[in-house]
Each structure stands twice: as structure tokens, then as C-alpha cells.
């Protein structure tokens, strides 16, 4: 662990609250796209090694994954991803494009639709979090990831000490009528996590003065 990095109970509480607000906006966007309520599970925050984070996500999805990954620079600097179990990802696409669309056309559309869903959800979430901190985020173009959770987190990260510890945030959400559970995940290496905690502390100070946002 990076010397000086600390995530005490109060920090964790604020991180959870901020992530909840971001994910709440993303869920509202998804809910509008599919015309159905989206259920959210409380977010989890853990400090883990990259492989352990991948193993955790692998256990949650219990399958190979299909997802959209984007790199962000801002209050949250790192990798954000929207992830579904591979076998269920088509269901979410179907929920968005509508049931009366011919199945062969949907398969063709699947990747582009997933990319767009990921782009909208991840930007809603990260954009809202940036607004809370009155800061700005920039995002790379969304990239489709298909395979194992290890591939999602460990690919292209050799230059960032691939086996180092990371701050791993994840939150599950489900669409009942489609029986799909997806995950929004964020992975921050500890140096950028410290920067995020700096934003958290400043936000706490504002809140203590009764300033709201």
C-alpha cells in the first residue's frame, strides 16, 4: 500500500455516498432507455490487488464478461467499466432497442448498442461525480471488452505496475423483467485514489458549512 494512503470509515462513507449519486444518475438514464425501474445494490469499496479485484468481479458475474471500458481523467482517474455476464448482455441490448426488432439485426447491432449504453451510463456517473466536486473529467472513447474479468482489468496496464494494489469500487444493478444484473466498476491505482480522497475531504468541509453541493 502507498505510504500515507488511508481509507477510514468516514472516508469510505463519503466515497459510497458520492458513488451512489453518480450511479443514481446512470441508473436513471438506463431506466429511461428501457422504460423500466432499475434496482441498485449498495456500492462496495475495497483496496485489493488487480488480480484479486478481477477475481472478485469474476465471482460476481459467474461467467465470462461482456462490457464497455473507458479511461477517465479527473477527480476519479482510472478505468471505469460497465460489465454484464456475457450470456446476458444481449438481453440488455434487447431491452434498449425493443423486443420487436428482428433477432439477426440485433446481433449485428449488439456491439454498437452496448458501446453506446456504456458510454451514456459511465459518462452520466463520472460527469455527476465531477460536478459534485466542481471539477472536470475527460474520457477516452469507450472500448468493448469481451472475455474474462482479468482481461478487463489487467490488459494495457503493464505500465501501471499491473500487480499493484488498487482501489476497487463496484456497484450492482438489475433489470428484473430481463433477469439481468450488471455492474459499474471503477479501478483506481492508489496514487490517483489519494487525489480522489483529497476531493472527498474538500467536499466534506463544504458540507460541514451547510453548503450542500
Amino acid at each position, binding site marked *: 500500500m502507498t505510504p500515507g494512503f488511508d481509507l477510514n470509515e468516514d472516508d469510505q462513507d463519503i466515497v459510497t455516498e458520492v458513488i451512489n449519486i453518480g450511479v443514481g444518475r446512470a441508473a436513471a438514464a438506463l431506466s*429511461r432507455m428501457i422504460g423500466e425501474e432499475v434496482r441498485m445494490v449498495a456500492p462496495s469499496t475495497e483496496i485489493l490487488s488487480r488480480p484479486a479485484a478481477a477475481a472478485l468481479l469474476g465471482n460476481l458475474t459467474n461467467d465470462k464478461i461482456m462490457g464497455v471500458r473507458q479511461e477517465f481523467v479527473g477527480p476519479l482517474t482510472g478505468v471505469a467499466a460497465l460489465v454484464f455476464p456475457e450470456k446476458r448482455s444481449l438481453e440488455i441490448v434487447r431491452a434498449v432497442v425493443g423486443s420487436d426488432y428482428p433477432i439477426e439485426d440485433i446481433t449485428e447491432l449488439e456491439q454498437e448498442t452496448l458501446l453506446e449504453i456504456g458510454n451514456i451510463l459511465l459518462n452520466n456517473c463520472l460527469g455527476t461525480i465531477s460536478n459534485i466536486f466542481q471539477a472536470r473529467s475527460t474520457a477516452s472513447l469507450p472500448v468493448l471488452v469481451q472475455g474474462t474479468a482479468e482481461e478487463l482489468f489487467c490488459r494495457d496496464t503493464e505500465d501501471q505496475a499491473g500487480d499493484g494494489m488498487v482501489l476497487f469500487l463496484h456497484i450492482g444493478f438489475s433489470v428484473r423483467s430481463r433477469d439481468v444484473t450488471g455492474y459499474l466498476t471503477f479501478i483506481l491505482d492508489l496514487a490517483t485514489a489519494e487525489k480522489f480522497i483529497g476531493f472527498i475531504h474538500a467536499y466534506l468541509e463544504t458540507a460541514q458549512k451547510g453548503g450542500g453541493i
Partner: protein
Amino acid sequence: MAQKTVLIVDDSKFARLSLSSIVARHFPDWIIGEAANGAAALCALGEAAVDFVLLDFNMPGEDGLTVAQKMRELRPDSRIALVTANVQDAIVQQAHALGIGFIPKPVEAEMLRQFLAAP
């Protein structure tokens, strides 16, 4: 303005602190109570009425809308607002159907002040 009472119900300590700081800043004389979940909030309301309840939606145990329904039966005169990050249209509509307010997180201090200042 007369001294009033506000019950803040949220599982996040930070959210409770943030809301109570806004209330204290605008209404320094008011009495602020806190509860970390719906069960504790209903227990507090059973003992004493309050003027306002600020109620989170996603909490361990029962969700805010279920809790609000029970509060309505227990204390029909308390004015309730759902204060939540869950800003889906379905949740907003359910809050309106129940006749309670809706304040999205992150909370704008002015929006909360208006809810508490309304006659």
C-alpha cells in the same frame, strides 16, 4: 420562524451531517434528530411527532418509499421528502403519488430550504 423539528433518515453518516448542516445553517433554532434506517426512524416517530422527515431511498432494510407509507399512517401531519440519489422517473412518480416531496442528491441547499420554509 417558530422552532420546528426535523428527522433525518439516511444510512450514510456523511449524508446526515451534510443535511443537518444545511438545516442548522438556515434554521439555527430547529431541533434535528437522526436515524440510520427506516426501523429506527419509525421507532423515533412512534415516540414523538416531528414537523419534517428527510428520508433516503436506498437504505438497509426497508426502502424509503415503504418507510414513508408507514410514516404517513403513523404521523399524517409530518411533511416528508425523499432525499435520494435514485433519481429515476419511477421513484419520483411514486413519491408524488404518495404526496411526499422529492429532493435529488447532491442536495441543493436552496431546494431543501424551500421545502422546509414552505407554509
